[in-house]
């Protein structure tokens, strides 16, 4: 149905796609994987009509395909579901679905929205994706997954024959993702072709018929999914095997407790008992909503909580706040680095130096030595291998997700922390950058600091942790030492009650 032949794309002197041949049949789901910068987005943007290829032919439904703009691509039957949802939470489902084509009355009221027609149209669209909700509900009241489905329903305003999903599951829980996959297989039965872009290889393996791997603008492999494993895909993506991805160094975990928590209770969590030793990587696993982030937030003093005892290096701590923790050497890198962690409009230098400024000034009003700070920032940025143009002009918003994460890491490493709380540090970043972050975690614990690693990726935790604590429904349901790591047992502990609750 879709056929690409010898597609090349150059931006100035840089060739980002070097001759791609690709086919998608009707009723076929093609997984498109590759590191960030491998050329996935460029390829999809050409299909979506955002820009044309420099060379090569595209044909769609038996005819040459050269969309003028996104609207034209949509009319011709290609719908592009972008990673960031374009929904308005303050408008209703029906208004969102038909926003740029609101049905109106005729004659004198031709600017007046016809509620009745709007409702009817919207109901048809919702039926198409199997979402049974009142169409007048505000989108802001929906769950992530429901919003994702509404975004997909928008595609059916036209008659899409090919739908491109760009990382649709990033903000979905496992259960929510399954709702999406069910819809995708229904669409497959209706003969609609799909391209599924994802960093989650397990998902790619479970839903696609064929997997295409891009690396550095070249098509590395194109195989039936049934013949693939996660390991072979990763090898194709990075050009080396997966063992190297999790280079866990067998560091020395000290007997000395760094942080010991007894009877922690917060909204929806607890009571919890757990501890982190010096030089240890403590993994926290659980489904979205299991209470992992809430636990970290409560410990760090971001949310109200109660506890029986919190000990830091044997010392009882009764009062704590984020500022007090940072003073003691505990830092928290939140899940949403763009919102909580970075000044996106500012360059690297102010972002990295931020937490260390007090160290460079004797008193609050004394002058800062800009050269000393700059020098130190440079060291940290090099250590964390942030790929950057310069330190003081380009805003960090221009960096890739992985590099933004490294900027946040550099900021906190500059303060020489004793404990690093990392909440989903590798979410949405490519494998190359992930590897570098794992490398940094190893360096940190080698120096005797500890890492509390919260993650939804079980491989990451298996690869990196000395110990894994599993949370489920606000409680700790299991704890595993490294020598007892067992993927199935960990998953069971995380899923258990949820399965029991399901009808």
């Amino acid at each position, binding site marked *: 149905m879709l056929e690409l032949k010898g597609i090349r794309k150059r931006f100035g002197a840089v060739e980002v796609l070097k001759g791609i041949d690709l086919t998608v049949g009707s009723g076929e789901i093609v997984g498109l994987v590759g590191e960030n910068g491998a050329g996935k987005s460029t390829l999809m943007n050409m299909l979506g009509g955002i820009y044309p290829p420099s060379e090569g032919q595209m044909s769609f439904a038996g005819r040459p395909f050269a969309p003028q703009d996104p609207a034209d691509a949509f009319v011709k039957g290609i719908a592009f579901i972008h990673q960031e949802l374009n929904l*308005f939470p303050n408008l209703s489902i029906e208004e969102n679905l038909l*926003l740029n084509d609101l049905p109106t009355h005729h004659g004198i009221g031709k600017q007046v929205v016809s509620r009745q027609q709007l409702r009817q149209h919207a109901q048809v669209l919702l039926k198409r994706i199997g979402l049974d909700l009142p169409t007048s509900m505000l989108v802001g009241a929906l769950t992530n997954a429901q919003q994702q489905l509404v975004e997909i329903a928008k595609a059916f305003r036209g008659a899409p024959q090919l739908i491109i999903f760009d990382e649709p599951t990033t903000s979905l829980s496992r259960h929510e993702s399954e709702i999406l996959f069910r819809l995708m297989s229904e669409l497959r039965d209706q003969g609609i072709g799909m391209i599924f872009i994802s960093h989650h290889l397990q998902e790619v393996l479970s839903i696609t018929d064929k997997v295409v791997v891009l690396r550095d603008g070249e098509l590395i492999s194109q195989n039936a999914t049934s013949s693939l494993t996660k390991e072979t895909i990763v090898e194709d993506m990075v050009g080396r095997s997966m063992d190297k991805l999790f280079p866990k160094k067998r560091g020395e975990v000290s007997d000395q407790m760094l942080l010991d928590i007894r009877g922690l209770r917060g909204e929806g969590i607890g009571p919890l008992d757990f501890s982190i030793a010096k030089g240890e990587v403590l993994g926290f696993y659980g489904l979205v909503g299991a209470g992992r982030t*809430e636990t970290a937030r409560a410990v760090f003093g971001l949310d109200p909580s109660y506890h029986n005892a919190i000990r830091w290096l044997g010392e009882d701590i009764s009062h704590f706040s984020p500022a007090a923790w940072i003073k003691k050497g505990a830092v928290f890198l939140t899940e949403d680095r763009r919102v909580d962690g970075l000044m996106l409009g500012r360059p690297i230098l102010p972002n990295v130096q931020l937490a260390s400024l007090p160290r460079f000034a004797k008193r609050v009003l004394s002058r800062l030595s800009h050269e000393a700070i700059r020098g130190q920032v440079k060291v940290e940025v090099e250590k964390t291998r942030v790929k950057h143009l310069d330190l003081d002009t380009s805003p960090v918003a221009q960096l890739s997700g992985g590099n933004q994460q490294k900027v946040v890491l550099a900021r906190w490493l500059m303060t020489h922390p004793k404990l690093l709380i990392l909440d989903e540090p590798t979410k949405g970043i490519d494998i190359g950058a992930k590897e570098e972050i794992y490398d940094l975690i190893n360096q940190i614990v080698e120096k005797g600091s500890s890492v509390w690693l919260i993650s939804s990726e079980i491989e990451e935790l298996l690869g990196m942790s000395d110990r894994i604590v599993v949370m489920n429904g606000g409680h700790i349901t299991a704890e595993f030492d490294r020598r007892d790591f067992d993927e199935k047992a960990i998953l069971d502990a995380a899923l258990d009650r949820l399965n029991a609750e399901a009808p």
Partner: protein
Amino acid sequence: MTKLFTIVKRQGIIGLWLLLILGFSLASESFFTAQNLVNILIQASTLTIIAVGMTFVLLSAGIDLSFGSIMFLAGVAAGMLTTRGVGLGVAVPTILIIGLLFGLLNGLLIVRLRLIPFIVTLATFYMGRGLGLLLSDTRAINLPEAILQIGSSRILGVPVPVWIMILVVLIGHLILSRTVFGRYIYAVGHSKEKAAKAGLPVNRILIGTYAMGGLCAGVGGLVAIAQLGAVSPSFGLQSEFLAIAAAVLGGTSLFGGKGGIFPGTVVGAFTMQTIQNGLVIVNADPYLHQLVTGAVIFLIVWVDSRQNAKKKSLSLN
């Protein structure tokens, strides 16, 4: 005090308004009379009309500081036209067109020059007032009887300013809730970037909201001078802040995309006018008016933000 807080928390601005009415009724026998309630309605008409215009602008995540100047210009134009013998049939439409054009100008400057609304309308606030002062020779203009008659006559027993207010509220509310333009304002107010991505004519929508604002300010100016009978050099000063306060009291967000005219802005404007009127009736120190108004704005915004914080923490769990 705690009881007051719970009532406000549960009923929002409407609860506060009813409480104020109850309080003033207990404090003075002459407050809760048919005569005085009609007075409040008449007094509230100007504020409500311009607050409707401000709601359009605020919903699009904008702000317009030039409302008072638009009202002043409208008043000066009315004075110049009518004192030269131009009939109301010509003068009234002219005034409305001046308001509309001023708003259009604001919108065009904001959209074409890509400047932030605060700065653009701050500049046009001075320019509008300056132009008005120049045209009026900084003298008060007394208006002919014909204009005052608009303010004092009644249709079906209801004063004309109140009719105009009802009409503006009704039309404004229908535009916002029922028309394509109105729904687009909410979309643009939530996120200009997303609206542009969805293919909406963002610039035209923005210009439209400022035009609506200017038009309402013109109507408001007309209704005000029809009651005052004269245009002084300070006419309309600070009206924009009253309009913003009324809209915000009624639940419209300064960040755009949230709120509405009915009941929101209308109740906000009525509340402010009730305070004014009630304090006069109970013979309060005139200096107290602004203190009380400020305190009420604080109370409402505080309650609102506390509720939002609560909702947020609930949705986390």
